[in-house]
């Protein structure tokens, strides 16, 4: 029997929501930023063609694995690709271009603290606030465009990290070509300093923390008072800003070995950066681990009571709560019943996660939305078991 699964509209929203004013604001600023940044970068290619090509190759070696790692951090519900790419585009184009426009704050610092202090501390006082604000605006716009997709702290981290990754990409291109010199040897040196030695601590972390703050504020609307949400969100964003400020500050810079680097001094570079960056990295790792554990506990709580119904069986919950077990189940299904069955099983998993969301939001267990979602999962299971070989061994 051939199974033709119905097309099921999932709740995943795309970035392209032309009915929302937030979308048009986002689009206008990204287009403006793209024009501005492409124009600014285009002059750098003339410094060295080979250095320009090597810059993009090396940055791809950094950006792609980090993007995959961040994307897969969300255990139970991967974010829509258009939204994460939209976050990346905001960081790369809109946030960078708007940062270029935000000049003059250094003069305020100079007026307040004197020109010498401005030279020494200006980058630590102005850039973190300006850049994290502009990057954070992108995260908020993503939320306004697709509210349902930013519904917990981990989602906020993912979108924030992608905004930071886009920002870091453009910033590194400028540094490799314009600051380090642009020749292939200069680019390699820049890659060693800015990516290998310090790539773990940077815009991905700062914006990730800001994103976690946004995620906390919007995902606890029904169970935390406004004051608490603002306090926690501000604290997380402040941690990102302070981490950025510490990185830009002259603190610890005296440990950096004198140029030109020779022999063992090349090893000192990552060590010095680690002194500045590891504390914040540690905080973020702890926060992400806690957020993932919270996600799993939430899934357990929401679905444990559902195992006596049609939405999910105890065996299905056992594999649903562990991403590795889910992947093994999908792989086993593909082997015994083919790719169509594996695809339906993946969709069943997604809808069972959605069942958990509905169950955690409705007031009673006989809510019509919850009943409809249970039926939806049941129907997917029926469709799956109708495929030869897909039913569990005990049923065959």
């Amino acid at each position, binding site marked *: 029997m051939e*199974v033709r699964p*119905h097309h*099921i*509209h*999932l709740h995943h929203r795309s970035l392209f929501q032309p009915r*929302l*004013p937030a979308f048009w*604001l986002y689009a206008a*600023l990204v287009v403006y930023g793209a024009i501005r940044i492409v124009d600014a970068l285009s002059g750098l290619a*003339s*410094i060295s063609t080979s250095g320009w090509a090597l810059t993009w190759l090396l940055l791809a070696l950094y950006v792609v694995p980090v993007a995959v790692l961040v994307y897969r951090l969300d255990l139970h519900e991967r974010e829509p690709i258009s939204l994460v790419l939209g976050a990346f585009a905001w960081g790369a184009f809109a946030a960078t271009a*708007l940062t*270029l*426009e*935000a*000049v*003059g*704050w*250094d*003069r*305020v*610092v*100079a*007026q307040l603290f004197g*020109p010498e202090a*401005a*030279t*020494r501390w*200006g*980058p630590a006082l102005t*850039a973190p606030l*300006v850049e994290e*604000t*502009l990057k954070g605006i992108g995260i908020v716009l993503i939320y*306004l465009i697709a*509210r349902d997709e930013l519904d917990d702290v981990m989602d906020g981290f993912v979108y924030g990290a992608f905004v930071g990754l886009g920002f870091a990409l453009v910033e590194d291109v400028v540094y490799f070509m*314009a*600051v*380090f*010199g642009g*020749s292939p040897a200069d680019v390699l040196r820049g890659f060693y300093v800015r990516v290998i030695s310090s790539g773990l601590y940077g815009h991905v972390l700062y914006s990730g923390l800001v994103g976690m703050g946004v995620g906390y504020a919007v995902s606890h609307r029904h169970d935390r008072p406004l004051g608490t949400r603002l306090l926690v969100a501000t604290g997380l964003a402040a941690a990102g800003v302070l981490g950025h400020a510490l990185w*830009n500050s*002259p603190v610890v*810079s005296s440990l*950096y070995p*004198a*140029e030109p680097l020779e022999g063992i001094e090349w090893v000192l570079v990552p060590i010095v950066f680690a002194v500045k960056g590891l504390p914040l990295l540690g905080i973020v790792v702890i926060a992400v681990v806690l957020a993932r554990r919270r996600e799993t506990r939430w899934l357990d709580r929401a679905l444990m009571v559902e195992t006596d119904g049609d939405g999910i069986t105890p065996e299905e919950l056992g594999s649903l709560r562990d991403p590795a077990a889910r992947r093994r189940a999908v792989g086993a299904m593909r082997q015994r019943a083919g790719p169509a069955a594996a695809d339906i099983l993946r969709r069943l998993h997604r*809808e069972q996660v959605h069942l958990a969301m*509905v169950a955690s*939001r*409705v007031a009673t267990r006989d809510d019509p*939305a919850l009943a*409809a*979602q249970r039926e*939806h999962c049941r*129907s*997917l299971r*029926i*469709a799956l078991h*109708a495929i030869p070989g897909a039913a569990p061994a005990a049923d065959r």
Partner: protein
Amino acid sequence: MIGGAIPARPDRAPHLHRTERRWIPPIAILALIAFVTAGARGVEAALSDPPGPAVGVGRVRIDPRPGWTEEPALRLDEGPAHRRVLTRGGAALIVTSVEGRRDDASSLAAEYLETVLRERFVQLRVTGPRPVTVADALPGVRFAYLGVTRDRATVEGVVTAATGAAGDGVVFDALSPEGSLAGVASDVGAMIDGARVG
């Protein structure tokens, strides 16, 4: 055949429908962006003095952009060599002129690198020089640098050197804390391109 129709995903329960105030958040965001960007310009304008008179550096004339002021304490006039320093916030434009130079711009830039920049910084990285055209369509050379001072401040800068028709050499050294040079680049470019040499 699928056993039974698979229902469409249920809509959110009515009592969970959230009224979206579609316009207010984007307008608030736009206002915040305006404050972060234009607000900086507003503060700068409020704190800036009106553009000052032209600054003479030997036989070179510079028209300071609004917000740029000369540091009288850093003036230097030693025989044919003259130096003036213009600052705005943490950024500075050091203009050095030497009368009667017969060297080309590349030699002038190289000498400035060796005698000034290597003295100023304990660590220094420079890009290769590239040809440019500056004030009065003079041929010049330009290179960028990233230096660390003795008190461990990281400074980024761009040096532009040119020689006038009468043999007067001029070096424009624009510098600022790392990461902020781009913010004054347009002002610096305007002052260099508008300079009158010789």
